[in-house]
């Protein structure tokens, strides 16, 4: 039955992808009639009021999520808020603006003095970070629509081996680095372009992206929130800040009794077992390894910087002007047959081809610089993660990982200490209000 359910869901998602693909409408052909062809319509920017409403809803949702996860400790309430935020930020507001994409706006604002970042976008970027710094990742638990749509499809989660989880986490760092560098140098907004779920929120989108998003949701049936854990660039920032947070979700409200009931409660692999302190021999080996890795780190950064320059050409192919210039050149040389909308637009512009080629080369050199920075970043990430995995910390109880826990509250129901607390709380409430018993 379980296998049939998975297949059914997979079929559903794949079929949705094919069914939702959008198609444009060509304009009417004739101009010798009285019919007036309406001019091109461009969507107006969102009114300021709706932007501020979004910010207000985000703030309230963050407050509620924090209260429900940390204070009320109710998974059901967190889930209800998550569904509400999925409907509002996802299906109603069409997944835009979102804090994940706002990384690029902030980056562009820092890199380009001519770009003025909207205050609402800045608020969307900053508010979840601030809340995470103080209260952990309650944003991921109940507010983020991308997380919510994945959380909604978790049916039968299986654990991902810790070692594999650590390795796959590199992908999120790579995505973050790529998104920041592309936003700063091109600018190309990778996160928005390759948002896997926005097509579902808008009930329309390119077939490729719908299939990609659908694939993630299919994987999400058994591996909880794969995008959040292995790809989300904003999750990297939240993870860093969550480690610094003063108050965050704990499995038990009191002393851990090491019953191990919570061991497999988390579908996101965030619960850590107790760790014994290292032996003197292990400590000595760890120090040697740490010294070796600290020496390797700058080497990785330099190698990445030097080799990354070669990425200029492939990276530049993401830029529409470069793509257009390459297409026009290919058409000139007769290497392709026919024209595209992009090359037609260029021919109609009347711009000399050499100007366009020069502009494309200039963009490519910028991408080459971006490639170097990306290579250096990846060297830093790999080296830094290797060092992080060398450091060993003592852990006495079962506890949620400071960076990985998304505060969903699933582990509460497994903890006998928590259940005892709830029972006592119910008894106190009953004692205070005897009529409620009847």
């Amino acid at each position, binding site marked *: 039955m379980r296998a049939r359910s998975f297949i059914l869901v997979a079929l559903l998602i794949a*079929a949705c992808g094919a069914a939702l693909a959008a198609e444009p409408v060509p304009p009417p*052909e004739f101009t010798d009639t009285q019919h007036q062809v309406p001019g091109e319509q461009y969507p107006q920017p969102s009114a300021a009021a709706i932007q501020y409403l979004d910010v207000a809803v985000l703030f309230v949702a963050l407050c509620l999520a924090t209260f429900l996860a940390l204070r009320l400790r109710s998974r059901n309430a967190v889930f209800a808020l998550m569904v509400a935020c999925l409907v509002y930020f996802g299906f109603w507001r069409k997944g835009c603006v979102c804090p994940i994409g706002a990384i690029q706006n902030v980056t562009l604002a820092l890199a380009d003095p001519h770009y003025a970042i909207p205050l609402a976008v800045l608020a969307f970027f900053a508010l979840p970070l601030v809340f995470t710094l103080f209260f952990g990742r309650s944003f991921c638990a109940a507010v983020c629509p991308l997380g919510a749509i994945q959380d909604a499809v978790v049916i039968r989660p299986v654990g991902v081996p810790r070692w594999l989880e650590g390795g796959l986490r590199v992908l999120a760092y790579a995505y973050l680095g790529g998104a920041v560098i592309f936003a700063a140098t091109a600018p190309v907004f990778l996160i928005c372009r390759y948002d896997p779920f926005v097509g579902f929120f808008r009930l329309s989108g390119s077939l490729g992206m719908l299939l990609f998003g659908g694939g993630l949701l299919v994987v999400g049936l058994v591996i909880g929130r794969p995008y959040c854990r292995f790809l989300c660039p904003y999750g990297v920032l939240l993870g860093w800040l969550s480690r610094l947070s003063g108050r965050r979700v704990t499995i038990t409200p009191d002393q851990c009794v090491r019953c191990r009931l919570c061991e497999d409660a988390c579908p996101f692999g965030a619960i850590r077992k107790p760790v014994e302190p290292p032996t003197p021999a292990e400590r000595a080996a760890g120090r040697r390894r740490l010294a070796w890795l600290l020496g390797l780190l700058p080497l990785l950064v330099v190698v990445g910087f030097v080799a990354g320059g070669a990425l200029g050409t492939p990276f530049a192919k993401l830029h529409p002007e470069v793509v257009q210039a390459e297409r026009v050149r290919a058409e000139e040389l*007769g290497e392709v047959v026919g024209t595209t909308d992009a090359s037609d637009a260029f*021919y109609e512009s009347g711009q000399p081809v050499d100007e366009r080629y020069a502009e494309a080369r200039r963009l490519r050199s910028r991408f080459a610089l971006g490639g170097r920075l990306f290579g250096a970043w990846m060297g830093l990430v790999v080296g830094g993660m290797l060092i992080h995995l060398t450091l*060993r910390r003592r852990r006495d109880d079962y506890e949620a990982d400071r960076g990985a826990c998304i505060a969903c509250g699933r582990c509460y129901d497994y903890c006998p200490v928590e259940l005892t607390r709830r029972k006592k709380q119910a008894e106190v409430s009953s004692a205070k209000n005897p009529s409620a018993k009847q």
Partner: protein
Amino acid sequence: MSQTTANPAVDPSERKRSWLQAAWATAVVAGVFSVVLAAAMVVDALRSQAEDMRTADRLAELKVALRDRPMDEGLKARIRALDVELRRSFFRRSQATDTGRWLLLAGVAVFLISLKSAMALRRKLPMPKAETPVPGLVGRLARTSRWAVAAVGVVLALAAAALVVTASSILGRPERGEKAATYPSDEELAKNWPRFRGPGGLGISAYANVPTSWNGKTGDGILWKTAVPLGAPSSPIAWGDRIFLTGSSKKLLEVYCFDAATGQLLWQQAASGIPGSPAERPRTMEGVEWAPSTPATDGARVYAIFSTGDVIAHDFSGTRVWARNLGTPENSYGHASSLAMWRNLLIIQYDQATADDKKSKLIALDAATGRTVWETKRDTPQTWATPIVAKVSHLQLAHSGHVRIEDATPGDQIIACGDPFLCGYDAASGKELWRAECLGGEIAPSPVYANGVAYTANAGSYATAVRTDGSGDVTKTHVLWKAEDGLPDICSPLANGELVWALTAGGLLTCYDAKTGKRLWEKDFEVNCSSSPSLVGDKVLVTSEKGVTFFVAASRELKELGKAELGEGCRTSPAFLDGRIVIRGEKHLFCIGKK
């Protein structure tokens, strides 16, 4: 607890089982509903692709038919009706799809809720086994994790390397082509007839041994005569054993290659499928059609331009080397300027629209690749003249007596007529060197050059001689003389350094002194002429639109030497080869010479 007390007949486990069954049933129903709905939407989307108005075969066929019958109102009505029908179908389908999307979303939501509910009802609390401490487990896990991080890093690096290897940029190729550029020597150019009016565009034959009598009707003196598939007023060019022509019809633009020895048509290639080429032909003057421009060759490739803005290059075997569209020219009679060449550059005078539109330009393309090497804006409205390439030599200038040898500026120039300026450009860079205000009206005659002086003549302005060693506006400093007699409106002038000739469309040939501009003589042939006059040895050849060629002496006194008849009309200028003349009639290509 209170519920159990209130209704002891209901067993909690039984109730749970009932809920579980209900959840499963709901999940199955919602799942099947969603799958069926999604499948129906997919089938509908696939089926509707055939009805897509962009690709509807029937509509496309009707549109093609409309090009040939633009005034067919019945055809227009059928296209409109079909267009409306397809549009209605499209929007009906869009509405249905939109409804289907929401239904599908609702179905999937119900399916997921019921499935999650079922899973929650089946959930049991875990029963962990006793944990057995494994020495060194944490260390091993950390080591494996480090290897995993390193492995992912390596995979990313390999993926990046694959990207770098597979992603090449086509933008870098022209530089390589440029370095390998080759071009014919001046001697090779002089032996052939590589462009409109031959080497330099001067209308002067390198051979004096060409025939002076022939009769196209009887075949006397005609080596061969070959029908040309499509007509056009473009002139023949020749290189070695090949002769090239262009032709056009309402549907076709073509380049032809003939065997110079036999007249056999070796190949014909259509200029089609060129990116950016306009779907609808631009309007042109009646009779000119779309191939009035004479092609050019560098001995390796032949280049042609059409009134659509299409430029195309073929090698001598007829294989297309490159093709591009320069943008449809805005020209009321159609673009008619012929191609010129300087070294490895194909020179195109692309004048169009009005001067205020600032669309006119002189373009140099890399002959090997078609890439634009330079482009210079021109302050002129549309013209129909062809630029010439002048090898401005300080020795020529000095010998002509116009300048002192130390003041002369040597260098290859491209000289082009415009309204109102005659301009000289640096051939290598396209930079404008000088300009003289001496022209006006509709500019069709091309300039000529001799001994450091450019000569131009155009109806509505003057016949003018301008020194080519100036810079900036040389109107007041370098214009040697102006004359107002016998100004041509189509045919280009002719100059040999001593004399200058101008031929009007009405057949009036006027001879000037090249140094003073004094009119020496004139002869009215009383025929219409489109062909520009040519100089062969000591003879000037003038060909009428009826195909009669008149010979006069290239001297300070008028001396008529005879005439010859082609046997059919002629609007083109002849090509002169060793002992032969190649000339295009209305329907045939003729080679005149001794058998």
